[in-house]
């Protein structure tokens, strides 16, 4: 396989001057793809060398993804500030608020209240609204040129899933009682030799469900970017201009699919969080 690839690049070697920016570092396919995939990596913008408590593993530098998270949070605050301060009244309020309101009402009426009920749902509604809009804005920021996707980093996705894990365990213990929550994990009418087998499975099941949440979000966001970069990398591998129109057309279609996936992954993350928190705070008999 490497013979065919080197023959392709050798036959179009006189067009090597067109790959001006990438010349000199190695013109084989692996090096080109490696340099393209580095667009997905994270770079520090402001390096901070101070480690609290002398912990060398804690790197507090401001990276590009940190800036993106701040931009997403500031955008949510600025865009929803006007909607949140309005009192509830009938009638139209202008195009801008009428555009934002159906998203909030969809999360409230079609996702939280049907699953959790009115009273309990109103108590946990701010958490799920925050998760939905924060993940949505983080996903959409990656589609703007010269910006990165914060959720394409495992640490950011793990933080989102950790909020769900924290809510499940802490609010489960608050709602049902500290000891009764762990007792209700195992169904009541089973013979007692099965309990030492079933209880660790249930506990590990909670952690595995949150782990699946993070991996689903992380892999969906990263895979979209890598596919787009691979299609654009085909142009550099083949060293001709004729590959450019179909490669860019494919990349454009994957780009539109990524827009749909951004909304879908925010929706799925929030919906699964609602189901898990509901199972924790409503004891099932």
């Amino acid at each position, binding site marked *: 396989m490497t013979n065919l690839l080197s023959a392709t690049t050798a036959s179009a070697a006189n067009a090597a001057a067109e790959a001006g920016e990438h010349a000199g570092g190695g013109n084989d396919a692996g090096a080109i793809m490696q340099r393209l995939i580095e667009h997905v990596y994270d770079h520090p913008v402001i390096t901070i060398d101070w480690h609290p408590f002398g912990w060398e593993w804690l790197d507090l530098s401001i990276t590009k993804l940190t800036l993106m998270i701040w931009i997403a949070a500031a955008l949510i605050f600025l865009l929803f500030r006007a909607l949140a301060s309005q009192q509830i009244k009938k009638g139209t309020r202008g195009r801008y608020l009428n555009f934002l309101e159906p998203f909030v009402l969809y999360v409230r009426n079609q996702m939280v209240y049907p699953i959790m009920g009115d009273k309990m749902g109103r108590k946990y509604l701010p958490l799920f609204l925050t998760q939905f809009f924060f993940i949505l804005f983080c996903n959409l920021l990656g589609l703007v040129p010269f910006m990165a996707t914060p959720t394409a980093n495992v640490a950011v996705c793990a933080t989102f899933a950790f909020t769900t894990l924290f809510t499940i365990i802490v609010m489960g213990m608050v709602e049902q009682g500290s000891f009764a929550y762990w007792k209700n994990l195992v169904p009541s009418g089973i013979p007692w030799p099965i309990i030492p087998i079933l209880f660790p499975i249930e506990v590990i099941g909670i952690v595995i469900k949150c782990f*699946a949440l993070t991996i689903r979000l992380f892999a969906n966001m*990263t*895979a979209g970017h890598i596919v787009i970069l691979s299609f654009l990398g085909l142009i550099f591998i083949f060293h001709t201009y004729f590959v450019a129109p179909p490669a860019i057309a494919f990349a454009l279609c994957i780009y539109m699919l990524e827009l749909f996936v951004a909304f879908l992954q925010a929706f*799925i993350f929030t919906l699964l969080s609602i189901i898990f928190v509901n199972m924790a705070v409503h004891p099932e008999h």
Partner: protein
Amino acid sequence: MEGMIAHFAAGIGASLTVIGAGYGISRLAESALEGMARQPEASGDIRTAMIIAAALIEGIAFFSLVICLLLSFIK
């Protein structure tokens, strides 16, 4: 030669995963479309459940995608 086995394994793994996920989602779409054809007034609920199930199946396929990416890009 030693470094090539990882890339080869990543390709094989990703292909097998796509076969499984494609089969699962195609069966899901078949049942969903048949249900929508039999009872058009339930098509809203069926569509929502279909999207949720498709995202869950894709989530499992992405687990192996992450492992294949780790194989390809970590020395």
